[in-house]
């Protein structure tokens, strides 16, 4: 197939001037909405994870009329809750040389020079406010005996800047945002709509003015109108079927916006997390991540000898290959996620993998237990060890854990400008659902930081500027655009129920996952991607004629919900592969085997690919159009990312 043709250049609307002054100056120049007028504006927030919860809470506090939607039974469930390790902030409480600049630098470098400098600097500078805010909410961050906050170092960082709540940091931060939001629900400023799935975006005169939802309990389609729509619907890892994401994580809301004109940026930037529990069989429905904080004390190794089946404790040290320490002496077991994942795949592909199918490597705590004693290790990682044993029936205090990489996070997402506004005015995209801050690879403990930065401290400013500077005439549910969106949503559900095919939704999803993991996974080639595109199209055609969905549209029907989500993954998967095919370089989580150094490291092509690739929908199965946003590196000169 031909490579996509570029149709235009995008403007990220980044401010100029000294980088540290950009966001403060930008905030000063923004238009404000008069406090008395805020209640006249209705804002829809879709999703109640860290980004959605914090945005709804903050907008409610400001006095806006907020409508909050989630597919779950409660706004406390979103998958942000599962983040274990921590949240980064440039507080420099440890006096170890951290600063906003260093966090900015680490994030740009970690993202392999594929993120916007202006956004990332803003993120790093806001990081400190997030910690203060969460502490004030009562988030129980770990403390020193003297009562001050403690930190740990986390994947890819040489300073200790990660704040944490045992292994449940995401849970505690999400509950903080949720509680702040429920306070606004009680105050009447946020209206909660649980069990509601967004099925379309309403665009009137080029501006996002509402959404169509399906009430998952009654099956009813409902139209909600607003002055702005804020999408906080997370990432798309589940396009790979097996991932560490929750089962309800999906691309539907983002994809439906894409079909209405929102550009999808960098979909090929997917993150594979190195420390997951390996697959145990075909029945596997999801993968479980273990915090990479384990790599602070665990050592990763495989046997030096191929096919060595001795129990790990019987393999002497000189017959072990601690390959991360060997390849990356200065970072060792703390090498960034993409580097560590690929190194594990390389060893397993070469035949050195361990476990029943040879698809895992050891993560060994023997030395930490010898050095610090079992109680210290138990205190740090007890809950993770417990979880590992429950799933695998193996005791990690006695034998090394087995780990293998799995899909975990997606850096790509809907394209947004510096205001977090998509190319459709009035449609804002926050958190993992947007593409903006992590470039081609996200550093550990940065997802929580970005979700909360967007929701607490960026959107509340930029949305005000939009509302104050845009004419927003009254719209009604009878507008043809709203009616058309409603009818399309309804028809789609009916077509699933009328199909009466022979294969289940899960069966199709699993097949899609195999295509994606085998051909669009950790190592991609031009040939594998073209194979994938062909297979995805075939599978999609079959899905659209042969999927079997039972039950009715008028009650809770989880099978029907699932069909809609997998249907959207079938379309989205092709875009992901097309983006990966067009990006003829390796960077961050996107590794093209044709583009690597002699040592097997990722080889970027800054001359030709130093841009954000944002795709415009042209129809299902029709080649999308490519918009480019050039990336300029003024503060941190482009350099090869090395962790040696």
């Amino acid at each position, binding site marked *: 197939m031909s490579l996509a043709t570029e149709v235009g250049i995008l403007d990220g609307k980044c401010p100029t001037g000294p980088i540290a002054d950009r966001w403060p100056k930008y905030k000063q120049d923004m238009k404000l909405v008069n406090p008395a007028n805020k209640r006249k504006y209705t804002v829809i927030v879709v999703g109640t994870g860290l980004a959605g919860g914090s945005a709804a809470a903050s907008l409610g*506090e400001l006095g806006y009329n907020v409508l909050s939607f989630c597919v779950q039974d409660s706004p406390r469930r979103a998958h942000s*809750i599962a983040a274990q390790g921590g949240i980064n902030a440039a507080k420099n409480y440890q006096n170890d040389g951290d600063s906003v600049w260093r966090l900015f630098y680490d994030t740009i470098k970690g993202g392999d020079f594929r993120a916007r400098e202006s956004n990332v600097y803003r993120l790093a500078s806001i990081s400190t406010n997030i910690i203060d805010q969460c502490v004030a909410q009562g988030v129980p961050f770990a403390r020193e005996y003297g009562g001050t906050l403690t930190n740990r170092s986390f994947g890819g960082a040489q300073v200790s800047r990660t704040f944490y709540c045992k292994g449940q940091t995401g849970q505690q931060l999400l509950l903080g945002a949720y509680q702040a939001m*429920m306070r606004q629900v009680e105050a009447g400023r946020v209206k*909660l709509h649980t069990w509601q799935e967004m099925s379309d975006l309403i665009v009137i005169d080029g501006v996002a003015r509402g959404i169509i939802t399906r009430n998952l309990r009654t099956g009813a389609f409902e139209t909600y109108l607003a002055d702005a729509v804020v999408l906080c619907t997370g990432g798309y890892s589940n396009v790979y079927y097996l991932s560490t994401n929750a089962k309800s994580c999906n691309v539907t809301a983002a994809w439906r916006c894409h079909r209405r004109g929102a550009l999808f940026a960098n979909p090929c930037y997917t993150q594979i997390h190195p420390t997951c529990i390996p697959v145990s069989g075909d029945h596997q*429905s999801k993968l479980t991540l273990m915090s990479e904080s384990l790599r602070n004390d665990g050592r990763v190794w495989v046997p030096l000898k191929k096919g060595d089946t001795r129990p790990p404790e019987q393999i002497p040290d000189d017959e072990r290959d601690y390959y991360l320490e060997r390849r990356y002496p200065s970072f060792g077991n703390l090498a960034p996620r993409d580097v560590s994942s690929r190194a594990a795949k390389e060893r397993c592909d070469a035949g050195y993998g361990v476990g029943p199918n040879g698809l895992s490597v050891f993560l060994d705590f023997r030395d930490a237990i010898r050095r610090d004693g079992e109680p210290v290790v138990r205190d740090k990682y007890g809950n993770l060890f417990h979880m590992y044993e429950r799933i695998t029936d193996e005791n990690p205090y006695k034998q090394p854990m087995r780990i293998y990489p799995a899909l975990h996070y997606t850096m790509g997402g809907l394209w947004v400008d510096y205001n977090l506004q998509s190319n459709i005015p009035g449609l804002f995209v926050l958190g993992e659902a947007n593409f903006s801050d992590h470039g081609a690879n996200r550093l550990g403990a940065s997802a929580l930081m970005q979700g909360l930065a967007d929701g607490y401290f960026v959107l509340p400013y930029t949305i005000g500027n939009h509302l104050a500077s845009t004419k927003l005439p009254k719209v009604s549910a009878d507008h043809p655009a709203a009616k058309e969106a409603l009818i399309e949503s309804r028809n789609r559900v009916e077509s699933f129920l009328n199909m009466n095919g022979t294969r289940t939704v899960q069966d199709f999803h699993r097949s899609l996952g195999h295509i994606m993991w085998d051909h669009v996974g950790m190592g991609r080639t031009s040939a594998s991607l073209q194979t994938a595109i062909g297979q995805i199209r075939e599978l999609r055609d079959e899905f659209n004629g042969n999927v079997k969905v039972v039950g009715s549209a008028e009650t809770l029907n989880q099978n029907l919900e699932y069909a809609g989500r997998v249907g959207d993954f079938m379309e989205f998967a092709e875009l992901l592969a097309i983006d990966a095919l067009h990006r003829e370089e390796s960077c961050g989580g996107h590794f093209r085997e044709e583009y690597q150094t002699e040592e097997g490291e990722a080889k970027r092509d800054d001359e030709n690919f130093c841009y954000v690739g944002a795709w415009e929908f042209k129809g299902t199965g029709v080649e999308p159009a490519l918009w480019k946003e050039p990336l300029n590196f003024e503060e941190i000169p482009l350099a090869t990312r090395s962790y040696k």
Partner: protein
Amino acid sequence: MIAPQNDGMKLTVKVWRQASVDVPGQLVSYELSGISPDMSFLEMLDILNERLILKGEEPVAFDHDCREGICGTCGIMINGQPHGPDNNTTTCQLHMRRFKSGDTLILEPWRANAFPVIKDLVVDRAAFDRIIAAGGYVSVNTGNAPDGNAIPVPKTTQEKAMDNAACIGCGACVASCKNASAMLFTSAKVSHLSYLPQGAAEKNERVLKMVARMDEEGFGNCTNTGECAAACPAGIPLASIAKLNREYIRALLASDQ
């Protein structure tokens, strides 16, 4: 479709089937074979559902999401025990190796007046959200916070707060209680916030409002039986209820009413 394993487990699974809150439900029996002991409990239900769908029957509706024990969405009464036989374990983290081939499993939804059945094993737990809305927070707007280290919190105090904050809001405590009381859930949030200096300013008001809301929602009273703490997958201790009672009495004595 996953091929059944010949050497797998055989099970009789009796599942509560109920189309909606308005119609009566009943236990329906299904025979399952080829179940691997390495499967999670919910993967076993996935297999049952795949087989039902292919036969044109409605799959069993059950709640689940993260499948790693933290989101609090899943919750099935398994042989009379919320989340099944393992301590400190959610339904999604229970594995089939816990059972024997030939076992009969009885699966029911959480049963409580305040948790109406939506369908099959799915219940409505929005009452929990409304208890939190009544006061389960520190009233601080975004942007008002002092530096994180301006409020020192002793490590032991923080750990007590964290132990209570670990509640996942699944509702097993209510399901296990003969009175369908929500005391353990409510006490976990009251305790978390009342241990911390940040939550102190409104601690009296908070506990009074949350307990009042809990009663309004139709949860039963606590008789200190302790089933809730035994069933809790997040390890919230019974002592949290004692803490709630102390906070409540102190708040009552301090109130003007």
